């Protein structure tokens, strides 16, 4: 990287926020994606929107490539610079600019941590539902760029459903304002929606306005065991067919149950195929009725155990198994490959079966847990990066799993994004015409191709 370019960067953000030492470059060469690593040429941490604009104008002139980064927790290699370009980290931009209680919106800088926004709005009796597992560290910008989902997706939707307005810096440094606080807006193309899940390839968000909703009055948490996988899956479908939409409908499979029990000793039986964690929220009367409806459906499907939490403390206890699922799995072996294949809800049982058979075929340990209500599963392969043969088998297994996902009418990624990790599967899913349209859009936003190049397609 040229010295004059680095000097110009440090003139914009200051020397202490322009990092070029070996150690820093090594530490910005990864994100949460296993096996991927590549050092950037320089790291900058802008403090405001205007600095992002100036950095982009500079990079555009110099033809230098820029990869935006929030907290680097994505699981698809999206925040890694593969061509020794600039990493632009947004964490310093962490102010909540406004919580508008009349219009029910919040406007934040891009680097605000998701759970920090939760805390602020909930203190005012409001609610911002998207709650990715990484919410204590993920940034709002990262959430928008990946269209992150969470445990409450079934009832409340994902990030996409809440983004109302964006201030985005384009590749040449110009500012693009899209949407705003209005609930209805049909003026021209819906650029807001286009920018959501663009994975840093179309522009860099500086400010984000999201929709808030009133906080649900109460909630009820239930934990259910099923000796048979099919029955658990049918229960999921039948709950929804009964017009009950739980806020949370989470699933753990047999392998995960065993790991959770080994690690946390929460009293899960080892002879059941599936555990469901169900949460309903809303008006107290409705919550009671829904919980009762769910109990009946579970019993009709031969659940072996059904417990409703009597207090907030107990609810927390019931949720432990799901909360610690990833930790329990991750501790088994050094390397954890966490995927997010997503199928139509009705295909959960065949999908879980297929994952289990594929694991057996390739002699792998794969635990599956996830958002059953959304059909979004996290098959998690427990392996060791030093065992190249096993890693190869893991990739082959996931290849088959993704093919099956597509065949079932599902998608290769429900929430983690394509990045580079899933790039090779995308054409199979969207076809040549899909890729062509995406390329066209990319060209319109970023003709020089300097924004997060090499990602998605």
């Amino acid at each position: 990287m040229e010295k004059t370019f680095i000097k110009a960067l440090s003139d914009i953000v200051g020397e202490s926020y322009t990092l070029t030492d070996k150690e820093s470059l090594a530490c910005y060469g990864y994100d949460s994606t296993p096996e991927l690593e590549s050092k950037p040429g320089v790291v900058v941490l802008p403090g405001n929107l205007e600095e992002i604009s100036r950095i982009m104008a500079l990079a555009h002139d110099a033809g230098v490539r820029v990869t935006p980064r929030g907290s680097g927790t994505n699981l698809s290699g999206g925040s890694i610079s593969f061509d020794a370009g600039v990493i632009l980290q947004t964490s310093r931009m962490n102010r909540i600019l406004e919580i508008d209680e009349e219009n029910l919106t919040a406007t934040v800088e891009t680097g605000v941590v998701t759970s920090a926004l939760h805390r602020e709005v909930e203190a005012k009796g409001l609610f911002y539902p998207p709650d990715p597992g990484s919410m204590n560290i993920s940034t709002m910008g990262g959430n928008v760029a990946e269209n992150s989902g969470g445990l409450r997706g079934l009832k409340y939707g994902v990030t996409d459903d809440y983004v109302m307005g964006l201030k985005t810096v384009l590749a040449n440094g110009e500012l693009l304002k899209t949407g705003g606080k209005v609930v209805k807006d049909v003026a021209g193309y819906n650029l807001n929606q286009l920018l959501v899940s663009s994975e840093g390839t179309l522009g860099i968000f500086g400010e984000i306005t999201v929709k808030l909703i009133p906080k649900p009055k109460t909630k009820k948490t239930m934990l259910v065991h099923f000796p048979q996988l099919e029955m658990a899956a049918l229960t999921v479908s039948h709950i929804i067919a009964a017009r009950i939409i739980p806020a949370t409908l989470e699933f753990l499979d047999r392998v995960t149950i065993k790991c959770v029990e080994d690690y946390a000793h929460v009293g899960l039986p080892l002879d059941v195929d599936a555990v469901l964690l169900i949460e309903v929220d809303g008006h107290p009367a409705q919550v009671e009725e829904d919980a009762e409806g769910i109990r009946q459906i579970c019993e009709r499907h031969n659940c072996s155990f059904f417990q409703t939490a009597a207090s907030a403390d107990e609810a927390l206890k019931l949720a432990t198994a799901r909360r610690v699922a990833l930790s329990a799995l991750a501790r088994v072996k050094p390397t954890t490959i966490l995927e997010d294949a997503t199928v139509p809800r009705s295909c959960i049982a065949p999908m879980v079966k297929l994952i289990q058979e594929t694991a057996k075929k390739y002699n792998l340990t794969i635990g599956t847990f996830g958002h059953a209500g959304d059909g979004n599963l996290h098959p998690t392969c427990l392996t060791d990066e030093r065992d190249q043969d096993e890693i190869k088998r893991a990739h082959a297994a996931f290849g088959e799993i993704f093919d099956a996902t597509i065949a079932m009418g599902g998608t290769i990624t429900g929430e983690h994004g394509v990045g580079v990790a899933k790039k090779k599967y995308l054409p199979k899913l969207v076809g040549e015409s899909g890729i062509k349209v995406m390329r066209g859009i990319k060209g319109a936003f970023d003709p020089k191709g300097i924004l997060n190049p090499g990602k998605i397609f």
Partner: protein
Amino acid sequence: MDYVKLINCMRCGMCLPHCPTYKETFLETASPRGRVALVRKFQEGELVDTEQFLEYVSLCLDCQACASACPCGVNAGELVAEFRCEKKSGQGLSIIENAILRQLVPHPDRLEAATAPLRLYQLSGLQKLVRSLGLMKMFPAALGRMESLLPTLPDAPLRKTIDEVTPAQGTEKGTVGFFLGCVMSLIFSEASLATVELLSSLGYKVVTPKDQKCCGAPNMLGHDFEGVKQAARFNTDLFESAAYDFIVTDCGGCGAELKKYGHHLDGEEKATAFSSKVRDISEILASESAALKEKLKPLNLKVTYHDPCHIAHCQGIRSQPRALINLIPGIDFRELPEADACCGSAGTYNIEKPEMSDRVLARKLANVEKTGADYLVTGNPGCLLQLKKAMAEQLPQVKVIHVTELLQMSMNAKG
């Protein structure tokens, strides 16, 4: 160093929001995930220990908040400390380190003698004079910081004056060995007296062997692992653990270290037995809460609690001290935001890395102020030193005391 411990990090970033230095800087190099990566890359030969490298590594407080947060059981703080220990064992101790860690710290008599001039310095009024004239400005900055941290010392170290055996009051329930930490003995003797009083009033005979030596934590901080082992051997021999139902300490740092003796001595049976009997005072008292409650009288105070790293992160003790505070009738307990974040004391960190220590401390103070409490309770002498000084200077309305002092206050209150 065990390489697997390094590759166990799956880079999920869950530790980042808990790391005090990351929260201050937002730099990956100042985060647990980054530190594990640095040490790993050093092991792999990709990075070498340049000055810059060591600077990044040494910015770690070793507070182990990262370990509490990590889903994979990785302990970045400990890995960094281990790395520094290994480097040190290659180099050997400097003359000064040898003098302090081997010749002074493990010898309580010498340690007490060394602090005697300080006592004199304070008693004679010299301290007031020095402070009012600002003479410390003439000395190196680190010395000035040390001087300013110095609270008023008790007349004599508690180890000298405490009874070797304090009988149980009422029916004897059991015998505990009291491990009296150096700093508790030298500086916070009131709190340790409260500890003994509480234990004895609950029916425990308290034995405080006078020959006990430092737990070895300072050696660990100085990355002198051999010194740690020597301390572990000595104390396990001294506290022949068969004689005690528990070995109790009211120093979070000692407790964390004593519980690791088994590990330090590679699972030796005697050391493991010793470690398994070690309890922080709050653990014992919380297990006696019914009996304790009867003895407590109302205190109308607004109280908050700071979790010492060595108690919350290293020993996993969080609910017990809070439960104890809430036992006291009339107490208005207010949870401290980010209660388990390091106060910036971190052994000698506040002297070695004053700038970062001050930033971490400032955050703690702002949080304490938000609670509106008039008592800040904690359980570790390092925190007591750091917080007492900070409160006196910046939030004088807030008093800082040990959990046992608060309980003693309630026990001896009128009404």
